[in-house]
Structures are given as C-alpha cells and as structure tokens.
C-alpha cells in the first residue's frame, strides 16, 4: 500500500468544500430526523479516523474498537443519568430501584462532575486501550493474532456489561434521550441541533489532529512499523511505545465518537460491543481508503447514510449490499475509493472507456513519482 495521505490538490479541495458546505447547509434543509442521523454518522467518522490511524498507517487491524466506543458512551450516559436523578428517591437513577439498589455504586460517584465526565470520555477509553495495547505489543503479538485478541477482548467486555444489571443496567443499557442537560431534555430538537454542531466541529478537529500526527516523521515511523517493524527496531526506535501511543489515541477517538453517538441516538447499551459493529468500522475505512484519513470520514458517513436509506426502502437487503461493497473493495479497489481517486484510477478508467487516450508514459511516471504521488 502507498503512502496516500498526501492528498493531490483537486480531490482534497473538492471533498472539503463539499463537507463544509454540507455541514453548514444541513440544519436549514434537513428535517431534524435526518439531521440527527447525519450527526450520528459524523460522530462515527471520529472512530473511523482512529481505525485509519491504527490500521491504515500502523497496520494494526483492531476488531475491538467497540470497547472504547462504548466506554465513551457509558461515561456520558452515567453523567446524564445522575444529572437527572436529583428528584428521584435516594437521588440515584431510576433503574437501580428495579434491582433493589439503595446507594450508588462507587464508580458512578465521579460522574456527578461535568468536568470529570468531559475528560473521562476520551481519557478512560485511551487508558484502557493503552493498557491492553501495551500488554499485547510488548509481547510482540502481531497480525492476525492481534486481531483475534482484540475481538476476544471485545467479547469479554460485552459479556461483562451485558451481565451487570446492578451496576450499569446490563443488557438494557442507559437511556439518555429523556435525561436533562442545562435544564433541557437531551432528546429535544434544539439539543439535538447543538449536538450536531458539536459533532461537526469535533470531526474537523479530530481530522486536524490525526493529520498533524501523521504528516511528518511520526507518521513515517507508523508506516515503517506497518511495512517493516524489524527495520524500525534496528534503526533505534521502540515500536512497542509507538504502537501503544497510537492505539491509545485511537481508543480515545473511539470514546469521543461513542459519547457523541450516544447522546444523538438516545441510548448506550452493550449492543455497541457486538462483533459486527466493530467490523463495520473497519469496512468504512477500507471502502473510504486506508491511510487517507479523509477516506475514513467519507466512508463512515456515506456508508451509514446509505445504510439507513437502503434499509428504509428495501429492508433486509443492506447486509448483501455491504458485503458486496466489501468484496468489491478487496478485489477491485484495494486502496479504497479515495485511494483510487488519488491514484491513476480515474485516468485509467477514462482511457479504458475510450474517452481519454492519454496513457501513462515513462517520463510522466517519473515526474509523478518524484512528487511523491501514488503511481501504481
């Protein structure tokens, strides 16, 4: 795979003008229901950026990002539940009374603080990711074994959260849509509009942050780890440290993503930790384009929007379409849609259709390569 985040001029501009125009215009022409969907999918894009960072750049295929996504969601949901329970008996969330719990479990206490909650949304998932990552990377577990381990960890977390009724309401999850924030109902139209704006801004900030990470030598080392870890080691870098940091950052991004998704979908539950959901995150990035960052955002938003539109029109057909899309990307577009657009894809297509006769010539190839542009 090529180093493709050096986006060639027009594709990048076009995409950005499109995204920003869409975000600014969306609240005025989309009904709140659709706006809310778009907001949710934009929040998923943040998790996708993390997946691109660890998979597209560093070569770590994690099938367990749902863990960190859910942790972020639970953090905000616990805060919102507590924020709304001051009038309730024992001043604890309502569901506790179903199980006869009289006092708040200890780990809920800090979530009474809004400040703690805001930080916990990304710090808790990134600490968990960093810890898991360090154990795995220190033992030099790589490739398929890493993927299997992350999926196993996901199942462990799923079973734990699913089974703990008395701690976090188990399989029912925590609802946020009827809770209150600043005296307003979280599920109300006006609140949802705010959440859309917050999400849009955070997507752009996350993109800027991940781009800053990969644009220079740090990103080069990540690519080096992906392509030849031993060389990185013998050059004097400690891959374990870099991988732990990057995995932890991806966990933090997934946490932010999960929190934003939770407040916009109205509930967090162990369903966020099911296996298919974490695999979908990988598909968004694969389809959008690994190692492009922008492709991860586009993949997450468009695939999910397509999913909701297709599911409304032709229920039950979405899984076939998603599977087909994945097969198409693996066989025909290994660099994803954006990777294909940035490479020689469009030109090859045009010349195959007989529209353009320009074939890549040797001096042209050299000129392209010397600009660091994808040429395969």
């Amino acid at each position, binding site marked *: *795979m*090529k*180093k493709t985040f050096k986006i060639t001029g027009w594709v990048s501009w076009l995409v950005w003008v499109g995204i920003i125009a869409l975000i600014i215009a969306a609240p005025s022409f989309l009904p709140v229901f659709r706006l809310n969907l778009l907001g949710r999918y934009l929040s998923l894009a943040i998790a996708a950026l993390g997946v691109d960072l660890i998979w597209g750049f560093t070569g770590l295929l994690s099938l367990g990002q749902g863990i960190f996504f859910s942790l972020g969601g639970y953090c905000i949901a616990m805060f919102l539940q507590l924020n709304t329970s001051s009038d309730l008996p024992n001043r604890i969330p309502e569901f506790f009374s179903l199980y006869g719990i009289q006092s708040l479990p200890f780990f809920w206490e800090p979530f009474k603080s809004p400040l703690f909650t805001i930080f916990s949304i990304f710090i808790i998932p990134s600490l968990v990711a960093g810890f898991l990552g360090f154990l795995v990377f220190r033992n030099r577990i790589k490739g398929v074994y890493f993927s299997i381990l992350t999926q196993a960890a996901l199942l462990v977390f799923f079973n734990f959260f699913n089974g703990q009724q008395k701690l976090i309401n188990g399989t029912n999850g925590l609802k946020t849509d009827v809770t209150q924030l600043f005296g307003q109902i979280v599920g109300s139209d006006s609140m949802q509009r705010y959440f859309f704006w917050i999400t849009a801004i955070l997507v752009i900030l996350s993109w800027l942050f991940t781009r800053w*990470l990969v644009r*220079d*030598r*740090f990103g*080069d*080392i990540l*690519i*080096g780890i992906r*392509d*030849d870890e*031993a*060389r990185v*080691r*013998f*050059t*004097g*870098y*400690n*891959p374990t*440290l*870099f991988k732990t*940091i990057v995995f932890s950052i991806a966990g933090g991004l997934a946490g932010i993503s999960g929190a934003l998704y939770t407040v916009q979908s109205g509930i967090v539950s162990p369903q966020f930790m099911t296996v298919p959901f974490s695999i979908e995150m990988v598909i968004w990035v694969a389809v959008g384009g690994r190692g492009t960052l922008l492709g991860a955002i586009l993949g997450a938003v468009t695939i999910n929007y397509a999913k909701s539109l297709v599911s409304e029109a032709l229920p039950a057909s979405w899984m076939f379409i998603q599977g087909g899309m994945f097969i198409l990307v693996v066989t025909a577009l290994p660099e994803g849609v954006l990777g294909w657009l940035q490479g020689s894809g469009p030109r090859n297509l045009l010349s195959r259709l007989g529209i353009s006769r320009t074939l890549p010539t040797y001096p042209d190839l050299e000129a392209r*390569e*010397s*600009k*660091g542009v994808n*040429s395969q």
Partner: protein
Amino acid sequence: MKELLKLSQISVSFEGFLALNDLNLSLQAGELRAVIGPNGAGKTTFLDVISGKVAPSTGDVIFKGQSIRGKREHRIARLGIGRKFQSPRIFENLTVYENLVLAISKPKTPWSLLLDRLSKKQKDQADHLMNIISLQSQKNSLAGSLSHGQKQWLEIAMLVGQDPDLLLVDEPVAGLTDEETDLTADLLKSLSGNHTILVIDHDMEFIRRLNSQVTVLHQGHVLCEGSMEDIQKNPQVIEVYLGQPEEEEG
C-alpha cells in the same frame, strides 16, 4: 587500538541444534573485519546475537566495555550498533529522503519526532548521504521504486545516518553487478576508520577487495583468523570452504 566489541564463549542453541558453539571474537575500534563461512556456519545468527535479535544461551557480548546481552534491539541500536540485513530492508513506501531522516533523527522518541524540527545539521547530513550514494536526484522518489543496488546503498546510508560505532553489514553485494560490487567495497573502505565495520559475505572477490582481516566461521565456531592470503593458505579453510568457490571461478 581500543577494543570495541568482544564476544566471549557465545553459544546459541535452537532446540538442541547449536547454531553458534563457543564463539570468541574481538574487534578493535576503527577496524574493518570480514566474516566468511560456508552456508550454515552461523554467520547470520552471529549478527543476530550482536544486534539483540537472538539471546545467546551462554556467553557474553561486551560492547564499549558494557554487557549488551539480553538488551532489546532498539536499545542496542541506540548504544551504537547499526545493522544492514541480507536483503535490502528499507521503508519502501517512504521517500529516499524520509528513509534517511528517520535514521538520522535523534533522540528516537515519539515526542521528539512530533514536536522537534529537524535541525539544519541533520538536513545537511541527509543531503550529504544522498550525495555519497548518488541518489540526490531521487530524493523524493519512493524507496520502493529504486533498483536493487540503490536499495542496498540506501540501507547502508541509513546505517551511516544512525551514526553507529559499529556497523554490521550482512551480504551487502548479494545480487549486485560487478561494478556496483566494486563501488560498495570502496564505500565500506571509506567508512572504516571513522566506523568499525563487520562485513559478512560469500563473495571472495569482494572480500579480497576489502583488504581486511578475515575471520572464518565453521559450524558455529571460529575456524581461523588472518589476512586473506593467510586464510587461503590454511588447509583447514580450503577443506571446508575455499576449495569450492575457487573451482567455480575457474
């Protein structure tokens, strides 16, 4: 001269098979040393032990007066041991310049890579290295697009960029043309003096051209040491090794 590296009584056992057997070797600072030996003599394992990839079952490795046995690879690399692999190992999806910069960067920590700017001196060094290996014009080409010989040189240049005291060079001329082989030999000779270099190779012409002390490995053990002429006269060496290539050349 000062002793830079000393291996004493090194044995490495892979599930009962002794890849290295009671190996003793010492290198002086600034020396250029060639190590030869037939296939399976333990040449690559020997480099693995020095660079930390394989931990010896017994024995000790002393580098600059300090034991490096059991240290992790990146620590050993930072102490000043650089390694070139048998087939060129470079970062193919990075440009020539980026490859060199990663080797030159110091300190090699995440924070430094993210927050520090490359100094003028480091940039100059990257340019200087590209000049030595004549890749200045391909500064921004992906390293994967280089020819085999250019990749070998790029890897050697990366090694030099790490500024190690000891360079371990594993078969640098495998797959190179005669002309490239000669240039590589000159490059290594010009580097010795400032650096201590340990070269492993099969190619007798290349070793002869290095004009250095030669150590012959056989079955994980040092068979003998000396100049190329001494080695060629040694009956034991002829028996295990030199006989065959000589015949092939004729």
